[in-house]
């Protein structure tokens, strides 16, 4: 019986590092990581059968529904090796699985000595998994390749074993085969983790150094910080200090997750657990920072600490202007748990009061928006996402622009835009359409490699701005959903960029302005003007809609004046019905935003700022 009763297992703060194995699981969305984790909790008996539920470790509804992990978790699993019969402590550090959270992933991996590379053997490896694999290899982690879902009829373990072997330089037969669903091969996997992954090494007598790899806000306890102790030890008697800020905190509690939090006397070298200090905001306990003790502080921080930098900006506006205070409250609350989210008030002539928000990437943006809508019950309009531009003025002064409305109208010497290196993995049959899409989006081909006979890795540099607007949706639709995408920022390049303004009756509508490449300005102008012509109802007068670069008009449409707005019928004395109809029309009028003299329905803003893919998604959601 390889499971060990928790009470009899080696205890926190007194576990010999040689008995510890710290590992992460690298996997793509829906490759079965959560199910495998569930199985590990079951087999090691840290969760009793009757308390088990699916995706035990995913805490948020959003995580369960989307099958993604936004925040990491660390679970302490006692295990008696089936190979040598000895007792071990396995710390499973669950890592977020998305490109937007690459930095968090890298810190989670830095807390481990090894990683399980988990690949669905019906689908093969995906771009983001590959990126995380490279990250693990850079951190010198021992990689255990594992093919999951071997119970599936469509499983092709031989094919994907070859693919994995080629990627990490092992033999195909070194790949373990498991089924998270049936539990097959999971005990063997735990044994191999013990056997292959080296134990942590650290100096127990040195000043304490612990790596923060995650930080979570809890309504009752404040911020819970997840740490991996590198040197020394942390105990409840300590006062701790954040290396980056020098701020001192009382240690209220220290403990391990198993998989519910259990307080302990402390954490020793190589151990993974949590600390609670009474801090109320995750920004005071940042991922990647080093915790040391106040009375015996270390002089050397752990490497790799970075401040998260927002890459994508968008305006968020409440549909109902009266909800503005609620939106502020909801953002404040979300920020307690999301150090990467930044925002400041923004006023739009068209959309009213809202916030300009910065995100790590598109998924991060979507998640924030969804959480605001779901958890705070808000209805929001978000403006088209924008990246960070560096504008050099004629006088040599520089301007950082994250909002098209701040883009100067004249005297621009040069504009620099962020560039990313993008990796696309897809079946070889889609090479043509992928290259076409990347070319359209101003991409430069860096290289292409066959991962196996029929799967390729295509690498491009692309302006980030080209990716933030529906690139992923396009990629998916052009490859029947098979392609996967990963990207990382690699710097900036000068671009021939212009701001396109949209004018209604010669009056600019700030929410519709966009910074685009000069070659695409015309297409953007035509798209927006014709879309608005459909969306804006006819007015008392003719309304010209124009797209302009500066004072030059590049596209125009017009909405003819309305001639008839009357219902002549009288419903046989049913005046109440007619009055109610009028009251409804009056409500409709109230929901109109005035742009100059033009009444624009809220729906027109939403529809104009929405891509077709968004509409499809919304429909799918409504159906689902």
């Amino acid at each position, binding site marked *: 019986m390889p499971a060990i009763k928790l009470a009899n297992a080696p205890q926190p703060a007194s576990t010999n590092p040689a008995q510890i194995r710290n590992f992460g699981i690298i996997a793509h969305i829906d490759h079965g990581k959560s199910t495998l984790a569930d199985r590990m909790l079951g087999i090691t008996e840290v969760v009793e059968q009757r308390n088990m539920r699916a995706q035990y470790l995913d805490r948020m509804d959003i995580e369960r529904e989307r099958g993604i992990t936004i925040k990491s978790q660390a679970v302490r699993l006692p295990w008696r090796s089936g190979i040598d019969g000895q007792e071990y402590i396995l710390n499973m550090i669950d890592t977020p699985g998305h490109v937007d959270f690459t930095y968090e992933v890298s810190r989670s991996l830095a807390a481990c000595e090894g990683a399980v590379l988990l690949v669905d053997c019906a689908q093969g490896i995906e771009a983001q998994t590959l990126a995380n694999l490279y990250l693990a290899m850079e951190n010198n982690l021992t990689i255990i390749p594992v093919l999951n879902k071997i119970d599936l009829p469509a499983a092709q373990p031989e094919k994907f074993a070859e693919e994995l072997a080629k990627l990490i330089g092992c033999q195909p037969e070194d790949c373990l085969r498991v089924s998270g669903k049936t539990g097959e091969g999971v005990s063997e996997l735990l044994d191999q983790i013990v056997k292959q992954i080296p134990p942590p090494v650290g100096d127990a007598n040195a000043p304490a150094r612990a790596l923060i790899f995650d930080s979570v806000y809890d309504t009752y306890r404040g911020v819970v910080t997840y740490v991996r102790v590198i040197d020394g030890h942390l105990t409840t008697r300590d006062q701790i200090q954040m290396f980056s800020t020098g701020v001192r905190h009382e240690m209220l509690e220290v403990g391990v997750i198993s998989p519910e939090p259990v307080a302990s006397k402390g954490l020793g070298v190589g151990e993974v657990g949590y600390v609670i200090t009474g801090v109320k905001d995750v920004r005071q306990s940042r991922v990647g920072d080093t915790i040391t003790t106040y009375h015996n502080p270390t002089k050397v921080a752990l490497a790799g600490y970075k401040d998260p930098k927002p890459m994508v900006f968008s305006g968020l506006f409440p549909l109902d202007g009266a909800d503005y205070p609620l939106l502020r409250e909801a953002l404040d609350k979300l920020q307690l748990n999301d150090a990467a989210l930044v925002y400041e008030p923004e006023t739009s002539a068209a959309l009213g009061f809202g916030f300009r928000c910065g995100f790590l990437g598109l998924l991060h943006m979507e998640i924030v928006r969804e959480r605001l809508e779901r958890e705070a019950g808000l209805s929001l309009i978000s403006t088209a996402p924008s990246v960070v531009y560096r504008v050099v003025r004629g006088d040599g002064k520089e301007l950082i622009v994250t909002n098209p409305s701040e883009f100067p109208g004249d005297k621009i010497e040069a504009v620099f835009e962020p560039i990313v290196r993008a990796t696309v993995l897809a079946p070889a049959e889609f090479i043509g359409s992928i290259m076409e899409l990347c070319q359209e989006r101003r991409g430069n081909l860096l290289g292409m490699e066959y991962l196996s006979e029929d799967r390729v890795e295509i690498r491009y540099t692309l302006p980030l701005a080209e990716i933030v607007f529906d690139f992923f949706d396009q990629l998916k639709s052009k490859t029947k959903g098979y392609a996967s995408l990963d990207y990382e920022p690699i710097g900036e390049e000068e671009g021939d960029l212009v701001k396109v303004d949209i004018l209604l009756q010669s009056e600019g509508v700030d929410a519709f302005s966009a910074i685009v490449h000069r070659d695409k300005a015309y297409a953007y102008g035509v798209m927006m003007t014709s879309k608005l012509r459909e969306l804006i109802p006819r007015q008392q007068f003719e309304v010209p809609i124009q797209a302009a670069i500066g004072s030059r008009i590049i596209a125009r449409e017009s909405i003819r004046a309305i001639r*008839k*707005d009357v219902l002549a019928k009288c419903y046989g004395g049913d005046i109440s019905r007619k*009055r109610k109809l009028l009251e409804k029309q009056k409500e409709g009028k109230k929901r109109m935003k005035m742009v100059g003299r033009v009444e624009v329905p809220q729906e027109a803003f939403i529809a104009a700022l929405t891509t077709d893919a968004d509409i499809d998604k919304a429909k799918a959601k409504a159906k689902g």
Partner: protein
Amino acid sequence: MTRPLSFYIHIPYCLKRCGYCDFNTYTPGELKAGSDIAQVSNGYIDLLIAESKVARSEIDSNSPIPTIFFGGGTPTLMEPADLGRVLNSLESDFGFAEDIEITIEANPDTVSKAKLAALVAAGINRVSFGMQSAAPHVLAVLDRTHSPENVTKATNWAHEVGFEQISVDLIYGTPSESISDWEQTIDSALELPINHISAYALIVESGTKLAAQVKRGEILIPDDDQTADKYLLADEKFSKAGLNWYELSNWAKGGGECRHNIAYWKGENWWGLGPGAHSHIDGKRFWNVKHPNAYRERIAGNISPIMESEILTDIQKESERVMLEIRLKYGISKSSLSAESISNLTSYVAGGQISQDLWSAGRVALTLSGRLMADRIVREILL
């Protein structure tokens, strides 16, 4: 209280339901499988009389009745003598004004000369025929059963038996109706011996057969601009023929205005008898249960047939006043409006939708193009 009380009398029966109609009407088969009109309407007149007694006991008006209107449904499906019984009862309970106007809606298919004569004998002095269109393919889209020739016959008979007030109802903007179809309809109507025309733009009401056809894409709704053109054409031709507009959808030769309809627009008091009929008494609106069977049960069981009522707030009263009176030729007085409402309207005066002359004379009255924008102007006034 001495405000005069008008009566609306609902006859909720039709031999066949038209595809565009969402009025409260039923075919005999819908009410009772296999039955005919005589069976389902049997005793209906007694129910109306019973309800009128309730009205008598609740209203302390001593003014005689100024107008009565038989609507439907198809009122001409009833025996003229039966209709006469209701009128006799009302006359003895309330009294009739000397110049009382008593209108009946008529289907050109369900009248004969003899029947029209009998209606005159029963005391009815105004008849409104559902002509709708002179184009057979348009009538087919509307699901109407009559042929255009029947309208000519029926109006002539009405004239011959002594009706002095004769009106036709027209519908424009029906799918498949061309401008020349509509012009032909106007011309045909103007050849009839009539002194009043109501012309309504077709509204596709949800729940009708027509709405379902539109939703399935079988029928295409004509665009608003064409419908606007048809209104302008109608007004031009009617005016030339001496029929002048006095309400958005109504034109009459001098003295031929329908006073019952004007009572609606002016917020007068009226009592609606019959299932689904609406009443308005001094700022209170109420309406009866809709289904004829439910109505029958209520009246027979001595239970009030009123399904719902509302007492209008001052704001609602004002909304209704503006919404209804703006439809009339002389509109509403400027002095009854707020400064903000008046300022909202200046662009419509400048744009020619509100009459400049009447504006200077202190009234908000719609011009020809303004009539087509009446709802929008109402929204500007009510903010």
